[in-house]
């Protein structure tokens, strides 16, 4: 194919690159530049047509005027208003705690999957993926059925005599955690399973042969080798949870919002587009941190399961 791209089929090869490239430039990169620009615009004049609008034809003078009109006012607002700060913190808290819960729940499942006989493993993988294919919204909705005041959970607790009167499950942080853990479990289980499943069984035999009992080999061999999967799973869960909107909106309360909800409210409720854009830019910058850590881990350790 390289010949195909560079030799006779030059035009075809170029086209294969150019089409998706231009598409992504137009619909992925450009929108983010616009977000960045609008986040630096004045709130009052921000609704379309918002200012400053950058006119290429205006040339150098236009550019100077454009830069002069940029304002960091929105960012100042973000950091001074406790609403935004507490939203970021709330998101961070939910993401950290939920990722830890997912890890605690997902690792034993992934480990059990990797221990299962080969044929069963394939079935288990499908079983774990299957709920992911049913719509996200449906899965959250399913929990509303269970968690609402007259829901099954309260009915069950009442029937068992564990509580005297129905508890409020919906509109609590507990509900958010249940929803998040439920929705993201496959994203944690599958990468861990993939790295566990790749471990050469001979390594565990070698450990036993060298005098290492089974439980100790888990700590000394299995766990270190599963670490790439754990990191990938944690990243795959942490980042989207940070920006989660649907779960806290449907299951959580209104007293403390996650940052996704704040963005949504600023945009749809308050119609304050510059602030919403600034919220998005800061969120993105926050998310660069875990990605950078992950990248660092990967480049530091290039062995990638060489056996």
């Amino acid at each position, binding site marked *: 194919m390289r010949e195909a791209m560079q030799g006779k089929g030059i035009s075809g090869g170029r086209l294969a690159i150019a089409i998706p490239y231009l598409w992504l430039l137009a619909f992925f990169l450009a929108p983010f530049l616009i977000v960045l620009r609008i986040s630096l615009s004045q709130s009052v004049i921000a609704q379309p047509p918002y200012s400053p609008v950058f006119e290429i034809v205006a040339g150098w003078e236009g550019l100077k005027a454009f830069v002069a009109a940029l304002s960091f006012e929105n960012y100042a607002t973000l950091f001074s208003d406790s609403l935004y700060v507490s939203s970021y913190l709330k998101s961070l808290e939910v993401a950290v705690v939920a990722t830890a819960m997912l890890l605690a729940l997902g690792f034993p499942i992934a480990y059990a999957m990797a221990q299962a006989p080969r044929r069963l493993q394939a079935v288990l993988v499908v079983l774990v993926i299957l709920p992911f294919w049913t719509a996200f919204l449906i899965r959250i909705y399913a929990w509303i059925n269970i968690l609402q005041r007259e829901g099954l959970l309260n009915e069950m607790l009442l029937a068992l005599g564990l509580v005297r009167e129905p508890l409020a499950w919906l509109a609590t942080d507990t509900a958010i955690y249940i929803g998040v853990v439920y929705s993201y479990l496959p994203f944690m289980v599958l990468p861990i399973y993939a790295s566990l499943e790749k471990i050469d069984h001979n*390594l565990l*035999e*070698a450990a*036993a*042969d*060298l*005098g*290492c009992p089974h439980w100790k080999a888990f700590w000394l061999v299995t766990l*270190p080798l599963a670490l790439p999967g754990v990191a990938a799973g944690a990243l795959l869960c942490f980042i989207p949870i940070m920006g989660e909107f649907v779960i806290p909106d449907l299951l959580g309360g209104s007293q403390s919002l996650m940052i996704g909800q704040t963005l949504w409210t600023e945009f749809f409720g308050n119609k304050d587009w510059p602030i919403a854009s600034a919220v998005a830019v800061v969120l993105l910058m926050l998310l660069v941190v875990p990605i950078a850590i992950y990248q660092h881990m990967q480049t530091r350790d290039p062995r990638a399961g060489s*056996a």
Partner: protein
Amino acid sequence: MDIGDAGKPDAGRRRDFAPWNDPAARALVRFKGVTKRFSGITAVDDVSLDIHTREFFALLGPSGCGKTTLLRLLAGFETPDAGRILLDGEDLADMPPHRRPVNMMFQSYALFPHLSVAGNVAFGLKQEGLVREEISARVAEMLALVRLDGMGSRKPYQLSGGQRQRVALARALVKRPKVFLLDEPLAALDKKLRQDTQFELMELQEKLDVTFVIVTHDQEEAMTVADRIAVMDHGRLVQVATPPEIYEQPNSRWVAQFVGDVNLIEGRVVASTPGEMLIEAKAGGRLKVASVSGLSAGDAVCIALRPEKLRIEPVKAGSRGGDNSFEGKVWDIGYLGDVSIYKVRLDNGLVMQAAVANMTRMVERPIGWNDRVTLTFAPQAGVVLTR
């Protein structure tokens, strides 16, 4: 593993090393009627076998013959369905792999990818709870022995195949096992490196005085390194003997064919005297071989003839073929450098192979394609097989 002359004075010792012939000797490893089945397939079938202290023992057989399973039974990764395995007189049945004083070198080497070379070699010692100074001293000593000094901090993926092999060797041997198990240890190496490593293994074994049990499908490797070879097929031991015995006195057609090249001539005993036996070949012609007790006229036998024990000559005019002399036409010649293999189609229809050492540098050989030749052999050259 250049041990230099240090090991040489001992070398003579091995000439007389034959504890298996000593009825008073106590075996280090004893398999007693061991059977192992995997979902209906009998991988190891009623195997009884003694392995002695300081022996270099080879399990030889085609893939799937059960040799690796036998090794894994000894290491403790499989449990026998029947029979017992004793090590130093102690039944291993209830001893999990991590408690057994045996160590294994895996075919894939199974080096821990997340640990350095030194970390791999130290792994087993740490399990013993030794103090750090002793561990690092023994690791350094072992790495020097396998010529990996200075490589301790590398990761396995930074090593060549040969180096990885030596790390695996060091990692198991540093534990000073009673028995060292090697599962196809050299399969991943190229031929030249493999041959060098075979001799290194032998020197290492003499130096460390450890009992080695090696699994291999390569008969040359087994013959090179081992004091004794157990030839296995379909989970059973076919023959257990020293390399010369296996080669010169195979006990069955199967062993004769599996170890080295051989010409098999089916026939029937015509007459048997205390000195010689006369065999009538099925395809025609008569063979004279050294007599074997327990056979009488009319018994079906097979005569095994190694190619290098056949003499090949151009047919001389007027000579008349007698016993142990067959005429035929050269059908194919394989020039291997050190020897040439001649395939000869005999007048009775059999195809025989003769190997001739190329002792002189000759561009033109005296025998060519389609030449008429005579194959002859001494009566002692033929081995009478009944199985």
